[in-house]
């Protein structure tokens, strides 16, 4: 079985600082493996442990993004591909998915299962996975909580939506976006050594049979016209009543009457 896991290096969005010009200060912003992609990797590695499989980690990004591939290798992935080219940069979700899908077609061949994290913490679109599945014309399952069974040509998953928990079977090949809270394994020493010695495959524009106007900023149907800090619609007064709880309650009651229009 061949499993491909798409992973992404993201800035740690829990710790964002702003420049004076209202842009994100990228200095000192730590890069991490997108958390749900860690879950996707762990899911793949558990399938490998249980059923035996070759796990290939793939990322697209600048050279530094190789770090997440090394992490994947250290955790137990068997192979790694870095898609890197300045022509790929500025891509929206469709243009990103075109490159990922083309790598599968051109370099990876028969793939039984593609795993992705449900969403990345920077862009938060959740669109790249389904878009890759659409380009490869294979089925997709999103919001997957668990892969229950993985056989020759079929798998069964548990999927969780707003109101239901569903059990679904799919014919392979299939693309799955995982949304569980699995804790990714920590690499062991020999994993680190293997990852250090491993030569990741690097693929650029020339390595893919894809036209330039289909990738990067140029190939993206959407573009950002404006970015801004969210406006704060709720800037009111704060009063300190730590010494007088009854007074605090009285003021709260008055505000509730006021805000809810309860005044007689």
């Amino acid at each position: 079985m061949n499993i491909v896991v798409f992973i992404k290096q993201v800035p740690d969005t829990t710790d964002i600082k702003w420049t004076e010009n209202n842009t994100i200060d990228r200095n000192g912003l730590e890069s991490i493996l997108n958390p749900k992609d860690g879950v996707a990797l762990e899911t793949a590695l558990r399938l490998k442990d249980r059923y035996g499989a070759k796990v290939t980690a793939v990322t697209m990004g600048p050279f530094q993004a190789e770090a997440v591939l090394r992490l994947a290798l250290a955790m137990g992935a068997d192979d790694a591909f870095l898609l890197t080219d300045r022509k790929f940069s500025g891509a929206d979700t469709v243009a990103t998915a075109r490159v990922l899908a083309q790598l599968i077609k051109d370099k990876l061949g028969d793939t039984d299962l593609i795993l992705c994290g449900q969403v990345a913490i920077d862009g938060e679109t959740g669109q790249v996975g389904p878009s890759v599945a659409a380009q490869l014309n294979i089925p997709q399952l999103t919001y997957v909580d668990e892969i229950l069974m993985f056989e020759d040509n079929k798998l069964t998953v548990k999927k969780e939506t707003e109101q239901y928990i569903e059990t679904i079977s799919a014919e392979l090949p299939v693309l799955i976006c995982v949304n569980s809270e699995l804790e990714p394994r920590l690499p062991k020493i020999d994993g680190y050594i293997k990852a250090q010695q491993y030569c990741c495959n690097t693929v650029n524009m020339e390595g893919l049979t894809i036209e330039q106007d289909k990738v990067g900023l140029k190939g993206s149907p959407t573009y950002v016209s404006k970015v801004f800090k969210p406006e704060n619609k709720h800037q009111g007064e704060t009063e300190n009543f730590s010494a007088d709880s009854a007074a605090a309650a009285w003021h709260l009651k008055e505000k509730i009457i006021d805000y809810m229009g309860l005044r007689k």
Partner: protein
Amino acid sequence: MSEFGGILVYIELDRNLNIIPVSLELLSKSVELAQKLENKTVSALVIGRCDDYAPIIQTLKETGASKVIIAQDDRLREYITQNYSKTACRIINEQKPEIVLIGATCQGRDLAPRISTSLNTGLTADCTGLDINEEGKLAATRPTFGGQLMATILCKTYPQMATVRPNTFKAVQNNNENTTVEYIDLSNEVFDNKIELLNFVKKFKSDTGNLSDYEIVIGCGKGIATEKGIELAKELAKELKAGLGASRAAVETGAFSKSLQVGQTGVTITPKLYIACGISGAVQHIVGIENSEKIIAINKDENAPIFKSADYGIVGDFFEIAPHLIWKIQELNKGNYDA
């Protein structure tokens, strides 16, 4: 002039064949947006299989749809991504709307990128603002970087597509007297069967029900996620006829179910009044509450970021304030405004 015109809204049905709220919210918003477009057609696309479409059509008419398109087939009884996507693409190719809007639900987020990729067009995810700009294009605004940055996205191709967060817009009655209904015959369509739904179970409804049903929501933070704190919050909620939500940190203590989580990774709420109790106010939480009409915050820590996003803030101990407040609200409910 472009061959594309009008807005198409994907109408999602739940398993009881009721229209889910976000679909009507988008239909209402589309009627408003269409005023700024040359072609003011707002189509509502229903995919599935019902025995009686009359109540669905009636609701869509009352929400202002100028056209209802019904694509029905026995094979579409259950939602299967590829089959729904294929059906939607066929209809979009025939109708050629300039804008396609889909609710950002589990189904919508699954379906929309499949459609947009197949149509070779752009899609903006999880929007919290929609407008038509001076050039008549859809300007879709969405939070990114955990809600710390807003981005307005435009699309170079047609149709311009967006998914929109539930509870972003209000569904309003706006009866259309001239709604037309079109049934699409799918009997010649070939669907594949690579995906099979084996079974489904309904999740337990949270003990408070759906948070969007309440005019007041009380948000519980980690600071009050103890037995006593929750008891007080519940009693206060009872007196205020409020729903009970929780921050991510509070959910992680195990005291609240995940379905009550409010914020970026939980639900977005838009009550008339949100009362944040013992919530520090991480941006990820603020994103989920900022469209509340008013926000009150109670926190012991005067430096808690929540105070920067509150219309009124009280620095104080919830455990001590709550009993007084509960009594005062009980009196208020009896008609005593001066307790």
